[in-house]
């Protein structure tokens, strides 16, 4: 029987190795797999390359890994926010390399990575600093830049409900980067609010299919924490 659920979040991230490439879903705090990030801070893997849209928007996002000196490279579109100070300090002393990718290009690079497309041309960033030095080609009279696919060793995903197979549904704009990142990693780990039996999710609503999800962690609600604490 397929069983992707890990009872212990620490075990779900235990094998993440030094130097791994990690895709982290979310847009600011929305759809952010913050419990998996906290578990990885605890686990301590170093020299990570982290791909995530926003860096520094919230303290419990990728900023926590940066502050804990676990990151050697960031690929993102928006490295700005109230918790970006540690990133700025590490950029200045050369401890972290930053690659800024336009948001749509970032999404498409990940989509390509998950779909077996090694690279693609886009008009985005042509004639700009972010397109400088990249291969270009003119299509229909317009300059395009060549962008390479991104894949991860691991992806951290936040979903709302999962079934035992790992099918996922999301809650509102929590979806953002999560479905595309789920497709592009060797091991995709999803933290979800609820895990239900196979067949309980409406097949029309499944936004991430079980084929992409390898491990599930169910978040413990505050109420469940109370019950556990009080026996």
């Amino acid at each position, binding site marked *: 029987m397929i069983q992707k659920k890990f009872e212990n979040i620490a075990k779900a991230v235990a094998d993440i190795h030094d130097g791994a490439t990690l895709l982290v879903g979310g*847009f*600011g*705090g*929305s*759809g952010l797999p913050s419990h998996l990030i906290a578990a990885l801070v605890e686990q301590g893997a170093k020299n990570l390359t982290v791909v995530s*849209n926003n860096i520094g*928007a919230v303290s419990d996002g990728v900023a926590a890994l940066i502050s804990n000196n676990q990151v050697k490279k960031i690929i993102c*579109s*928006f*490295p*700005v926010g109230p918790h*970006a100070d540690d*990133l*700025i300090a590490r*950029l*200045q002393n050369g401890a972290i390399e*930053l690659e*800024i*990718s*336009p*948001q*749509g*290009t*970032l*999404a*498409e690079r*990940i*989509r390509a990575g998950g779909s077996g497309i090694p690279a693609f041309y*886009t*008009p*985005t*960033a*042509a*004639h*700009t*600093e*972010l397109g400088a030095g990249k291969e270009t080609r003119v299509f229909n009279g317009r300059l395009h830049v060549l962008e390479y696919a991104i894949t991860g060793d691991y992806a951290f995903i936040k979903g709302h409900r999962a079934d035992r197979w790992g099918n996922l549904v*999301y*809650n*509102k*704009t*929590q*979806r*953002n*980067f*999560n*479905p*595309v990142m789920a497709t592009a990693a060797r091991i995709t780990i999803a933290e979800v609010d609820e895990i239900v039996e196979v067949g309980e999710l409406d097949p029309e609503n499944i*936004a991430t299919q079980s084929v992409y999800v390898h491990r599930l962690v169910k978040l413990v609600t505050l109420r469940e924490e109370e019950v556990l604490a009080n026996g």
Partner: protein
Amino acid sequence: MVKDELKVGWSKIQLASRVAQDLEDGWFVNLGIGIPTLVADVIPEGREIILHSENGLLGLGPKPAPGEEDMDLVNAGKEPITLKPGGSFFSQSDSFAMIRGGHLDAAVLGAFQVSMYGDLASWKVPNDPLGRVGGAMDLTVGAKRVFLCMQHCTKKGESKIVEECTYPLTAPRCVDRIYTDLAVIDVTNDGLVVQELAPGVTFKYLQERTAAPLKDLADQLVKGESIQH
């Protein structure tokens, strides 16, 4: 640049309303962070304009009532918003397929600088190690129309409209129309043409605060010159 002594022109909300007037019934429109976000609150009554938020939403509604905020329902500025009936959620890939694929009728964006040729600089100040590109470069190459909605001058009183951008570009030759607190200005093949002046603003006043040559629509019409986008 000349420092403002008198308070003339449009307030931020009046400016947003002026932009909203030009958004047509049935359009799909993306609103950028900052003043453009205010446009959502001043869409003219009876007009169906479907707002797109690049984090993965079509059908963005107004701000929720206090206490009704849902942090899983946010806009591109990560502020809580509401979803209108008919609204939908989708992934980043789908969101930027809509943007890059030319499916949006207009993007309303902020700017650091815009040149007389419609070059836009909006994501990075010179020598900043970071930069905040987000979806700006995709929106400027993908939306059918790019409208800027911004203060005419910086806080230091410098014109944001310039002959050549000195800030890093978001995209060249992409801006169609500039809405500022002082005027509505079209970017045309014949240069910058002033379409409308805000209350209390004269053409001379506007030109003194603009670091690129402006043409007066009235003059153009008198001369019988055709103005083309």
